[in-house]
């Protein structure tokens, strides 16, 4: 693990982020919200991977924007960018387990269609 001895590792306490940066993040978040609403009214088309298996681009774009917004909030509002590795690892572990839950469950549902079972 990353942190070793306590006193050695620790530094100045929480990093203080400039309010202007917060303001910039706020503006980008609002812009991203506008963008995601605007995009949702445009047909971005679809990708026919196989007969019957279609990927619509709209939800993909919407989720990509949502993920970007999440990253902005997590990194700056929640100070993860300035936090020790352990915090970053914690966030990573959360996302990873979340993806395992959703991904592996969905994997079952999708592969059911492959066979007659």
């Amino acid at each position, binding site marked *: 693990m990353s942190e070793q*001895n306590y006193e050695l590792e620790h530094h100045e306490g929480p990093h203080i982020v400039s309010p202007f940066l917060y303001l910039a993040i706020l503006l980008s978040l609002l812009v991203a919200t506008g963008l995601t609403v605007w995009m949702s009214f445009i047909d971005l088309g679809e990708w026919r991977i196989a007969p019957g298996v279609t990927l619509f681009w709209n939800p993909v774009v919407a989720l990509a924007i949502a993920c970007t917004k999440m990253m902005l909030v997590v990194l700056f509002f929640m100070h993860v960018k300035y936090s020790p590795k352990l915090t970053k690892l914690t966030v990573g572990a959360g996302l990873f387990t979340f993806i395992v839950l959703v991904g592996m469950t969905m994997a079952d549902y999708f*592969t059911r269609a492959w066979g007659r079972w």
Partner: protein
Amino acid sequence: MSDAVTIVNLPDQSTARIPKMNYLSKENGLLSWLLTGDHKRIATLYLISITFFFFIGGALAGLIRLELLTPQSDLVATDTYNKLFSMHGIIMVFFFLVPSVPATIGNFVIPMMVGARDLALPKVNLLSWYLYIVAGGMMIYTMAAGGVDTGWTFTTPLSTHYVNTHVITTGLAVFVAGFSSIFTGLNFIVTIHKMRAPGMTWFRLPLFVWSHYAASILMVLGTPVLAITLVLIVLERTIGIGVFDPAKGGDPLLFQHLFWFYSHPAVYIMILPGMGVISEVVSTFSRKRVFGYTAVAFSSVAIAVFGFFVWAHHMFIMGISNYAALIFSLLTMLVAVPSAIKIFNWAFTLYKGSITFETPMLYAFGFMGLFTIGGMTGVFLGATGTDIHLTETYFIVAHFHFVMVGGMLMAFLSGIHFWWPKWTGRMYPEKISQLAAVVTFIGFNLTFFPQFILGTLGMPRRYASYPPEFQILNVFSTAGASVLGVGYLLPVLYLTWSLKYGAIAGNNPWQATGLEWQVQSPPLTENFPEIPIVDHEAYDYEWLERQREKEVASVG
């Protein structure tokens, strides 16, 4: 007993006294206990509460075995029987096994093992106990009001639409108990990361701490999924939300996915802390560092990580996609390996040791044998083909009782005996406790081994009545259960006796190396007069020897 067969090293009983200042004597009165932040007192509260629930669960188990003495359902009606096994399962899993070692022994020794004065969040620790009590109260209420008969797995749509027992209160009780376990796990992780004494690096931590760390990760990440699943069940019963209801387009298999996403890792929550106990005990009573420390440490973490990828092996015959079954089966095989690693490492810890056979060690031997059987039969069930025949029969009942009771309960008793002197300052009586260990082992095998054969023969689980040809083996099982009951009652009696009459233990009766053994027993409220600076690895018996020489020199 001569010196050659025991390592017990007690102070001179004529002069020894329990230290006047200790965590038990610091403050008196009920309030000082109910409002305490001291991890040792909370551990004691937990110990009392889980023992209470263990005996309720045990009594239910006794009734189950009595009913199964005869093929007909003659002692109790079928629905009463269904309530008995449901509540036995719920109480034993959520109110005994999950909190058993972590919330009691873990709570008591982890802060001392890492060299801290307390857990990182004492109030959260106390909150966890209160949540447990609230949940336990709800469970008792459920029992008094007529019980629940869904089985501990709450299978939908049975639990949501087809039974009219107290599913809602039970669901909420388990929900609350889940948060109690989340807070315990969270507290451990923070403590292990942030509260280690100077010099206490990760690879100087006792393996007990490693295994609790792994179990805590599972608690923190797995339990909330169970919580939301139970919320959905409660909502389905109260306002008819249909996520799991096939009649409304919902999917009962989704419930299985979400439930087992927690409940499979939950078995590792139950067994990992027990494995930690065994590491400590085996090392102490063979006077040797644990063979392959890093391998044992990382196998705990591997179990925690892989534990999240295998849940659908509970659903092989339930109509999941066969491809998914394949993947989950493969991953199940992988998660079986770290357990094998641990077993062999413990066995080789004995190699060239200097072994004595006090009670904790006897329980640990029992653990190693029974857990090997439990683990191997898990592979039978993890392999897709044999799972078809064996699942949902008594084979699976025997399998998880070998792991949970033969494994975790043995480890729990081992740990309780091992840390009893630290906890109370007094020794338990050795001879009778050795007898109890042996009785438990025999009773256990007599109870659960026949169930493997029953399962292979095809006797389904959760049956109140069964075809008469299965009776013989069931009689054995019931006979064994009564022996097992004696084995569990004995420790309660003599441990209570020892509170007053046990020999004064002194600081380190086992001459163990853990930091918790270097302080007085029972410890001070703040654990250490001065936070220790750690300069040695775990299980360093040479360091211990040097310490003792130093002491002798300074006294002399």
